[in-house]
């Protein structure tokens, strides 16, 4: 049975690939989780601050979001890792630079997601809370944010999946993450179908776990009785 033999050989081959790919997977996971967390931090701060009356801050944050969203992540990575050291002479350790770059990028997108969540809370609720004598901050803390954050969980998890896939672009700044290590294996074995197929399945597994986690988080933090 040739098919069975081929399948078994492919499985043995996958088993041999695993040590190298595991090293890459480690870097992929570290980068995706770190940059997403950084992006969440940046995104929340930016989202809350954009309603500020300080003109300079408002324009600066809007420019940040628009510029980051308007340029490809790849261009940002290449610009920061190759361009900045030559022109400004600042040294760039690759993994930190990679994580910070992706963090800044996803931060811009996440700030828009959080901001739209905040803005979708009906203004009637805000007016009612002010009529009750709550300050802007109290309104935010007790009325707006609890609803807004719960609403944007699925969108943010989706962004996390995008970030995980985007970490594959780190290979252009000399970071040997999962996809690059797959290339290393292909260089030696000339089996792109098997290797990249396996790696694609690994990315899919990560995305699937993330989306299941999303459902779990949504359920766990659901406000019972809240009608939306």
């Amino acid at each position: 049975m040739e098919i069975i033999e081929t399948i078994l050989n492919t499985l043995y081959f996958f088993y041999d690939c695993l040590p190298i790919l595991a090293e890459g997977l480690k870097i992929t996971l570290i980068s995706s989780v770190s940059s997403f967390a950084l992006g969440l931090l940046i995104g929340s701060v930016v989202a809350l601050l954009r309603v500020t009356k300080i003109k300079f801050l408002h324009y600066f944050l809007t420019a940040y979001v628009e510029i980051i969203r308007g340029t490809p992540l790849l261009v940002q990575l290449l610009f920061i890792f190759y361009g900045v050291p030559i022109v400004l002479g600042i040294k760039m350790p690759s993994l930190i630079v990679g994580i910070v770059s992706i963090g800044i990028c996803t931060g811009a997108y996440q700030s828009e997601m959080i901001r739209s969540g905040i803005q979708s809370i009906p203004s009637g609720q805000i007016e009612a809370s002010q009529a009750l004598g709550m300050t802007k901050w109290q309104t935010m803390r007790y009325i707006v944010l609890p609803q807004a954050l719960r609403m944007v969980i699925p969108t943010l998890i989706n962004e996390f999946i995008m970030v995980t896939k985007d970490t594959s672009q780190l290979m252009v700044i000399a970071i040997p993450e999962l996809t690059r290590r797959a290339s290393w294996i292909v260089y030696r074995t000339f089996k792109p179908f098997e290797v990249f197929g396996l790696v694609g399945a690994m990315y899919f597994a990560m995305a699937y776990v993330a989306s299941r986690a999303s459902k779990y988080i949504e359920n766990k933090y659901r406000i019972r009785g809240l009608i939306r």
Partner: protein
Amino acid sequence: MSFLRRAKGISTTAIVAIIAVIVVVAGLAWYFTLPPPGPPLTGIARIKEKGTLVVGVDVYPPWVSVTEEGQFEGFDIDVLKEVADALGVEFVAKEVIWETIIPSLLAKEIDVIASALSILPERSEQILYTVPYYEVTLAFVVRADEVGLYETTEDFTEKNVGAQAGTTGWDLAQLLYGGAGTNILDFTTIIDLLLALEGETIDVGIFDTPTARYYCEEEPGKFAVAFTHKTHALLPDLYAYAVRPEDGDLAKVINTVIVEMMASGELTDLMEEWGVTP
């Protein structure tokens, strides 16, 4: 689609049936006018039948480079143009990223691999090499103002080393520094490696000497070759072209062209023209 049903005349079912009939008839016509099947052509017969010699290249000057108009030029291009002339077919260069160059050859997307391909045992299980045309060493490239600081490979053990995965330079870097805990960075292209060298992200780049000398001359004052090093301890590192294993007759033609060019001195002239020291 319901609006069609209500229209007078042709019903939806009739339209679908007519389209289906047309598709089936066209399919049968196409099938029955196919050329009679036979064993698939290989080697020279296949090249002559399609009229083109497709050469897979990865930009790696001075062997292969791209002009501003997007044309390919270089030592390998010139040699393989001679081969295409000898076969009486058109020469076509196709850019392929390095890690897919062998799968592309095997998938018949290209017919010959060019671009500074070293003869390696594991590759010869998959592809058929021609006779070698050049013996190469690896250069340790540093920033021009630091060239006096480095004399042997040990001088880099505490430094950041750059190379391109999948090349002999990478293998040498792993051999010399892999166990020593030296930081070895993998770049997807040579240009990225040189940019990182200029920006001081790495202190040395290890890659083929002719290409290293090319870039040192192209960017005067930026880079310099600290020293060169043999690729393997005992065997010479040789460049050859490569074809599919079943294209033995094509390899023979390429070999003939190379040997003739060696005998007539044309190969040496070509090397001088492209700045390759023989």
